[in-house]
């Protein structure tokens, strides 16, 4: 029943967000039907575009999982962008400095990215546990610290020709593999997609079937009772954000050495903030996150096509996503509506 209600709420938020998008399109003089048609076709029209959608969804799934995990354990970490950057930075640095056969290379890169992200998540977790520092502010501060770190480190040591991006990642360090790229006719798809699926499954198992999951959720629902039960609350908080950070770090790797071929400076990855939408829409459940990520993947992949064909600014994609979150946040309205409909349905039977 909870699953059905969450789905209803999510759909309601999505529909309202799309409607708002339609209103915006009208406001600037464009045709919403045309706009949406190109938007969705841009993401699904042919196998290459589907590949791009999957590739975008990969990163979003991982950051969404990171957010959902943190939210489930009661922490409003907004640190995915910074954790992505650190994961991506480490992945790029290793990719440009180490030379090993591909499989070893990728293992090292992914592990290192996860560790980097995990550290970047552990810090606010520890600060919260030990010093009661509000994780919203601390994670955002760390985002900016990561941003500037990338800004200075890449041009100083890892650039090629341009001041604003790193050198190109060699093939043996990239998550792209020939057979996938061929299957999807040259899109951005990469091995990250499998990492994302595995991660979703693992997180689901942790949350639902393990002792650790029991503890983390208890802390998230009721810190005082968790303390009473003998759970080590500070350690759980730090661990939770550490795991969340590892996921986001992994997302960074899939983006910067998977989707992309190099790392650009001066950009705060939007997947970090979109992750909040993905997690909310997916009701903080791994399956929900995957579905929401796919939906947003379509939006992101399609907005360029829509822009090219209709002139509607691509930011509309971001705007729609943001509006969806707003409606998802006010979901209380929808849950009441759902309960009301269900009651009426039952009475009618």
């Amino acid at each position, binding site marked *: 029943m909870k699953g059905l209600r969450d789905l209803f709420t999510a759909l309601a938020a999505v529909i309202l967000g799309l409607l708002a998008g339609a209103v915006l399109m009208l406001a600037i003089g464009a045709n919403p039907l045309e706009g949406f048609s190109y938007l969705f076709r841009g993401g699904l029209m042919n196998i290459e575009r589907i590949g791009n959608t999957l590739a975008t969804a990969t990163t979003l799934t991982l950051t969404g999982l990171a957010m959902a995990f943190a939210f489930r354990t009661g922490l409003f970490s907004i640190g995915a962008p910074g954790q992505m950057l650190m994961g991506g930075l480490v992945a790029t640095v290793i990719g440009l400095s180490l030379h090993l056969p591909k499989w070893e290379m990728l293992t090292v890169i992914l592990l290192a990215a996860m560790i980097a992200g995990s550290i970047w998540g552990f810090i606010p977790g520890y600060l919260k546990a030990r*010093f009661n520092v509000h994780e919203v502010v601390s994670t955002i501060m760390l985002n900016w610290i990561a941003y500037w770190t990338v800004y200075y480190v890449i041009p100083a040591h890892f650039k090629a020709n341009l001041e604003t991006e790193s050198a190109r990642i060699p093939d043996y360090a990239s998550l792209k593999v020939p057979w996938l790229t061929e299957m999807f006719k040259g899109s951005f798809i990469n091995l990250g997609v499998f990492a994302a699926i595995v991660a979703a499954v693992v997180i689901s198992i942790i949350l639902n079937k393990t002792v650790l999951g029991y503890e983390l959720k208890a802390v998230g629902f009721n810190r005082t009772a968790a303390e009473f039960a003998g759970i080590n609350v500070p350690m759980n908080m730090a661990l939770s954000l550490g795991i969340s950070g590892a996921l986001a770090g992994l997302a960074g790797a899939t983006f910067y050495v998977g989707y992309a071929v190099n790392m650009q400076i001066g950009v705060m990855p939007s997947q970090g903030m979109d992750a909040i939408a993905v997690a909310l829409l997916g009701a903080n459940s791994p399956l929900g996150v995957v579905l929401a990520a796919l939906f947003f993947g379509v939006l992101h992949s399609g907005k360029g096509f829509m822009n090219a064909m209709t002139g509607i600014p691509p930011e509309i994609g971001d705007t729609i996503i943001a509006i969806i979150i707003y409606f998802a946040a006010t979901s209380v309205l929808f849950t009441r509506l759902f309960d009301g409909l269900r009651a009426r349905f039952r009475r009618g039977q």
Partner: protein
Amino acid sequence: MWDIVSHIFPYAIAFTVPLLAAALGGFFSERSGVVNIGLEGLMVIGNFVCAVTISKLQPSMGQGAIWLGLAMAAAAGLAFSLLHAFASISLCANQVISGTAINMVASALTVFLARTMTGSGNVRITLGFVPFDVPVLCKIPVIGPLVFTKSYATTWLVLAILAISWFVVYKTRFGLRLRACGEHPQTADAAGVNVYRMRYAGVLISGALAGLAGAAILVTFSGEFNGTVAGLGFLAMAALIFGNWKPLGILGATFFFGFAATLANVSQVVPELSKIPGLVLKAFPYVVTILALVLFSKTTQAPKADGEIYEAGKR
């Protein structure tokens, strides 16, 4: 050494002022019991609206366009914060999520609109406040060159707002009721105070002040809208915590952050500072914020019901 300080001071003050305005906004909101994470987004809205107003009205209104821009920015911030107020007060949504939604909608929407206007997503203005020296006062030794030279009109505006805020919150009927809503809304309710209305007031005021803050950035040192305020809204929140939710504390905290951030920005101009690696300077304000939070989060006295959803009829 003194040269550097007196050189930097006016810039530090200019940087502090938007922070102060936004933090005061947060002050009103949290004193009424609503956490407003959306300060960042509201500043972006104010920044955008002010830029558009000025660029459109400058040819016809000249200097007046700036003041109108500030007013419009405050109005826009107020209107936009209605979304947050409605979601978190009337619909009892989670205040952190609602605030984050505001941030995201604000940045996406403004860039979207900017692109339709200018094609590039940025809105440049060529008219801003000109720094001036306050007559007479700028001649006072020591404080004169520090505080009264190269100041902006917005500085004095915001300081006036600070004084008024202190008076309103601590001396008037409205302020007493507002604080009661933030400390123990059940008591306020039983005393006949409309908690919902008070909290709406708190959030709307925060929206207006944050909008004003965003505009202040534009007309003093930034000069263009580019979709973001680089985390200043969150710095303002940290200043609120650091300042222990009291106006004087907020003044001190925001100035501290302002000074730290300015060090980074003026490093190119000041020879001694340009020796420090860019990363350290740029990251400095953020690191300092974290340190401040570490030191002060344990002993803070947040309004007791801050962030708690209030439903009338719940005992």
